[in-house]
């Protein structure tokens, strides 16, 4: 069953179409990967789905309801949450204070589980600005997870992390998708993480859908190999 859907989604900046009539269906309960080369339109897609930008054309459906003109805040309360490509936290607040603040707003009653799931116990009393980058990334994801969102958009969660940290975070993503019963749309450049955790893959190229389907089938698709994967496949 589709929980999040884009139909004919187009985002144009002047004459440049960052997204060009994109159709995307995210099925409930899966980790859905969204990959493609730089400039493919992945981040624009995340912005349009989450409400950060209003598309020029097309619609966004959440549980079948048209949310294209709904605000970021409305979508968050409707169960659509996200993390950011560049870490987006509240640097001067402690980890505990910002999670507690956001948890109250989101109606989260099981903050301890999220803290444990993302291994944040050791930093709760630290200011977020003072903890390591990888830990800040996990705080970013924790903020997005509060309130049991039904759909979680993760925009390059492993950006800036080491190989080992990336794989650990990838496992965190897979675990939380299962434990919290949340559908994940994952934009990621780290293909080891993508093929490790994703149930289904969509490949974008120049703002358009290039391929979609089972990760193994997508990896073998000659168009994907030529446009993006190259020798990495």
């Amino acid at each position, binding site marked *: 069953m589709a929980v999040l859907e884009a139909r004919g989604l*187009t*985002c*144009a*900046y*002047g004459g440049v179409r*960052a997204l060009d009539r994109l159709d995307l269906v995210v099925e409930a309960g899966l980790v859905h990967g969204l990959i493609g080369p730089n400039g493919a339109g992945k981040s*624009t897609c995340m*912005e*349009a789905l*989450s409400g*950060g*930008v*209003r*598309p*020029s*054309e097309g619609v966004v459906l959440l549980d079948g309801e048209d949310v294209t003109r709904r*605000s*970021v*805040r409305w979508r*968050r*309360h409707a169960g659509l*949450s*996200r993390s*950011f490509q*560049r*870490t*987006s*936290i*509240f*640097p*001067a*607040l*402690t980890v*505990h*204070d*910002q999670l*507690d*603040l*956001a948890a*109250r*707003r*989101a109606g989260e009653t099981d903050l301890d589980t999220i803290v444990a799931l993302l291994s944040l116990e050791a930093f709760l009393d630290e*200011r977020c600005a003072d903890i390591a980058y990888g830990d800040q990334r996990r705080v970013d994801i924790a*903020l*997005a997870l*509060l*309130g049991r969102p039904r759909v979680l958009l993760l925009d390059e969660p492993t950006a800036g992390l080491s190989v080992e940290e990336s794989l650990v975070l990838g496992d965190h993503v897979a675990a939380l998708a299962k434990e919290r019963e949340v559908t994940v749309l994952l934009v990621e450049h780290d293909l080891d993480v993508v093929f490790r955790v994703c149930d289904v893959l969509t490949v974008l190229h120049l703002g358009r859908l290039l391929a979609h389907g089972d990760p193994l089938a997508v990896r073998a698709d000659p168009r994907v190999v030529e446009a993006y994967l190259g020798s990495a496949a």
Partner: protein
Amino acid sequence: MNPSVAAPATPDAGTTLPAAVAEPVPQSDGLRPWVAGLVLAVFLAGFALPYVVTNDFYLGLAVEGVIFGLLALSIGWLLRQTGLVSFGHAAYFGTAAYVVAVASTRWQWPIAASVAAGLLASVVLAGLVGLLIVRVPGISFAMLTLAVGQALYVIITKLRDQTGGFDGLPLRFEGTVAGWERVELGEPAVFWPVVWVALGSVMVGLWALSRTHYGRLLAAIRENEVRARYCGFRTYLPRVAAFTLSGAISGLGGLLFIIHNSFVSPETVFWTTSGNALVMALVGGVASVAGPPLGAVLFFFGRDEFSAGTDRWQLVLGSVLIALVIFAPGGLASLAARTASAVGRRFERSRHGRA
């Protein structure tokens, strides 16, 4: 029509805060008992000031310092909690003062009603201005506050029939305020407990508010407004409320000013009054509620001290401000806190060394 999308909302959108604001946000824990005891002792000791400082002139400077300390505190708290820099808060200070004077002197309203109207006017004005401008980021916001303040200055000078124009307006009323005649209220020794209680109440109130859910929300919005929205928070109305509260505190300062001085002039709402109050807040430090009032009291005593020897006393003020920005960007209160912390650590080390 050329199809285009709105500018993407970047998670780090917003303004870069001055170093004075980049201080730890108040934590949700309480005040340590010895600190609470010290604060209470200082507050109680403050009531004895008229018995210690018997010179009316110096006590008067202290009263002025505390009154303008409220104005500085309102600006400093707004800056610290929201990151909004106001160059026009004298507008709310002056509005309260002028409404009291006009209502009482011109319209012969009872003083209690005049005072209530003065406070209400500053709250309403701050609320309306806040609704219009808190969305505007950075320096544009500061310029708008300046514009509002200067517009009010022009209005006051033009409404000569009511405000007295450039000549100003005296406060006249029949009866008493809290049992004191108007003349008595101008005596520093009589008025000191009033301003001291007002300042103490506001400081405690703002300190407590900063530690509530609302206070932390304001800090979160200041830190990362886009993220706050993605966490499901409204980010506009909380800032409007903070701006309005800040204006109300300025208005309280204006009320005390007119009741004590029995006279108000357009200079009260001029931009230099706002600018000086911002300097007081930065000198004292905005990271603590004690900083801006401390800066205000030092400002008045410093001005008296240096202006006696030179008519270029602003040169001294400017030099002090430059030195503080370079060597103690958190202001004097932050410097004092760091010194106390260092002394405490040294004491702990020496104690462990002896053990």
